[in-house]
């Protein structure tokens, strides 16, 4: 992973000093709340329902075990013992005291971490694929490019006061696992016929009140021009994005208003002025950064010795087999696999990890995965480089720490925002809904029978829980001061990203588990062999599900999973 040199360190330390001064001035009454707000936001600090919330950046989701241990220490020392991993691969702490924040930032800086630009109207933390560098379908490793962009966007002097936040995601594989089409700017690594690296650039995607899929700006942007093109694109947005209404200020509204072709033309025109200027990337810089993402010292295992199936057969343990099936993923190096540590264990809030779990995950990384971890946008942790021979040991250890729920990709692997329990913007709570669904679908046999299903929950239109992209999406809405929930169906992430459709009037919290169950039963009754929920919805359409969702007080017969 990328390690700071003396200059990187000096820059982050200067930020700690700057923010310490700003905090002191605020606490001394020399800086008004209005003047302090944008400054604290650009350091990830929100004022929440109960206490300030601090969002710590985990650039492109990559963590060393040392960094995770430091996060655990901070969580234990300054919070109440639980951290929340977000869909943007960051960590949120919900019980922070404002005067302590400079000390926390200082501790973060000691392990090359920070909270820079994790909020505010600026370029945010850049996200990517949790399987970067190990995926078999990878065109090129996205992490060096994400780091190059991180440096470019860090304290970018022109773009600290944009109309609204600006999120960038980058994918290096054929299968987009970074949701690049729902970002303000999405980058897809591609190779041209000559084998040269470049990017297909998308802009104007996003969720929120007006969900839109990003539009293509340019087919092949040679890598040398990544920064100048990005600068041109953000500049056009900075100059012409709406500033009169925060709900209409994202770049997607501008792209939609003037049309993606016209927007792309303006970007191109701007770019031609700065193309080949000093910010043009050099091969030396790309090599300097890429070297730090060189593969670890893999052992040479013969390609044929083990497969996941043979490992399962060898142990003959149903629980372990299930974990192998759901939580273990292919790796491009023979004899290795990637392991997802589930943060979706029923009884805990999705994405939450306790201090002990963070420490256990860090220890697993040290012993079995070259001391590194990744945070996924589905709010789990990944050990990317585990030898096949160690999978059983990793499973046992993970199980002991409550990190081995064999539910990755299943209905229980919900993406859920913190919602009304913590977030002051929420219309409704999301965590109790997730808990009720976990409870209703506690039977693992039933979950396996249902198979792949993305269920996403957001507590308000800001859509931090990506509900639009869930095969089933749940959105908290406010009706005359009461909490209600709207359901969308048919959303999808990845290459075929699609915004789900609202099925009809919203439901009370107590109705949700029944509604979900009736829709699932409809799927089980209607599905073709090996057809996922999402595919059945696509084939037969919304009406049967809508009908099931609103069918009331009818005996549903024997429960299928009885």
């Amino acid at each position, binding site marked *: 992973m990328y390690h700071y040199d003396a200059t990187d360190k000096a820059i982050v330390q200067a930020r700690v000093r700057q923010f310490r001064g700003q905090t002191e001035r605020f606490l001394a009454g020399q800086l008004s709340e209005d*003047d302090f707000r944008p*400054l604290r936001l650009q350091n990830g600090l929100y004022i929440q329902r109960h206490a300030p919330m601090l969002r710590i950046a985990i650039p492109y989701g990559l963590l060393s075990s040392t960094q995770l241990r430091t996060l655990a220490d901070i969580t234990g020392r300054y919070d109440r013992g639980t951290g929340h991993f977000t869909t943007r691969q960051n960590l949120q702490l919900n019980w922070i005291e404002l005067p302590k924040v400079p000390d926390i930032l200082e501790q973060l800086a000691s392990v090359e971490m920070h909270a820079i630009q994790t909020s505010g109207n600026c370029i945010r933390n850049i996200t990517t694929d949790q399987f970067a560098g190990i995926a078999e379908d990878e065109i090129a490793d996205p992490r060096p490019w994400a780091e190059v962009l991180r*440096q470019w966007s860090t*304290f970018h002097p*022109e773009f600290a006061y944009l109309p609204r936040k600006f999120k960038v995601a980058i994918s290096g594989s054929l299968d987009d696992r970074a949701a690049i089409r729902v970002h303000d700017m999405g980058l897809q690594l591609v190779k041209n016929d000559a084998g040269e690296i470049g990017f297909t650039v998308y802009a104007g995607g996003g969720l929120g009140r007006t969900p839109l899929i990003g539009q293509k700006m340019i087919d092949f942007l040679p890598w040398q021009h990544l*920064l100048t093109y990005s600068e041109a694109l953000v500049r056009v947005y*900075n100059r012409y994005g709406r*500033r009169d209404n925060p709900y209409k200020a994202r770049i997607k509204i501008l792209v939609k208003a003037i049309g993606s072709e016209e927007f792309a033309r303006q970007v191109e025109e701007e770019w031609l002025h700065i193309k080949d200027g000093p910010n043009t990337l050099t091969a030396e*810089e790309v090599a300097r950064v890429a070297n730090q993402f060189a593969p670890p010292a893999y052992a040479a295992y013969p390609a044929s010795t083990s497969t996941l199936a043979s490992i399962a057969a060898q142990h003959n343990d149903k629980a372990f087999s299930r974990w192998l099936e759901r939580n273990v993923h292919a790796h491009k190096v023979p004899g290795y696999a990637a392991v997802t540590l589930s943060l979706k264990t029923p009884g805990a809030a999705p994405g939450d990890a306790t201090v002990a779990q963070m420490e256990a995950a860090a220890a697993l990384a040290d012993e079995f995965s070259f001391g590194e971890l990744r945070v996924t946008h589905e709010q789990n942790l990944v050990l990317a480089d585990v030898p096949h021979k160690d999978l059983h040991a990793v499973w046992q250890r993970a199980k002991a720490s409550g990190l081995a729920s064999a539910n990755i990709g299943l209905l229980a692997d919900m993406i859920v925002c913190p919602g009304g329990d913590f977030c002051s913007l929420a219309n409704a709570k999301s965590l109790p809904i997730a808990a009720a669904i976990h409870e209703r679908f506690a039977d693992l046999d039933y979950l396996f029978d249902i198979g792949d299903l993305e269920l996403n929950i957001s507590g308000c239109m800001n859509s931090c829980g990506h509900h639009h992209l869930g095969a089933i999406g749940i959105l908290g809405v406010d009706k005359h001061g009461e909490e209600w929930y709207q359901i969308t169906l048919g959303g999808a992430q990845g290459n075929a990203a699609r915004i789900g459709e609202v099925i009809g009037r919203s439901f009370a919290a107590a109705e949700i588990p029944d509604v979900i169950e009736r829709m699932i039963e409809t799927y089980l009754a209607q599905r073709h062999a090996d057809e996922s929920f999402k595919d059945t919805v696509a084939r037969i359409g919304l009406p049967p599900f809508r009908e099931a969702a609103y069918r009331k007080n009818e005996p549903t017969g024997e429960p299928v999973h009885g």
Partner: protein
Amino acid sequence: MAKQLIKHGQLVDDRWQALALADGATDGDAAALPIPAGQVIIPAPVWLAQRDALCSRADAGDIAVSLAPTFRVEDIAQDVQRFAMIAVEFPKFIDGRGYSTARLLRERYAYRGELRAVGNIGRDQLFYLKRVGFDAFLIPPGQDAAAALQSLNDFPEVYQGAVDQPLPLFRRRTA
């Protein structure tokens, strides 16, 4: 009165008189605005409306223009070398359009004269303002301009090339 203008890293007296147009002013209002003698800052639409009459005063160094966030800098591009000073307005510091305006003035239109940030700005914006090409900052009354001056040194290094340092860090890193 305390000095509130920072120029080239020093606190100095401000000799310019700023004129303003009312909100919703028309082209006619811009054409009719009387321009007093001495060094005056006029809104860019006033310059466009009275250009012919003001050229000789501008060439004598008495005319500066101020650019509102909505004003397209392209519209005065051909005149920038005539101005002794250009003021970019920040009615609210969270409106960052003026940062792009400044870079365009410096980098695209090669403006070398005084570029002044005015309005709702303070020490927490100065470092970025300097980086995009401002060399003068009018600190609002009531704010400690001397303390603001210190913030120009908040960061020892920068990543991206901009006006004050055109070369990005990656072209300057030593091994």
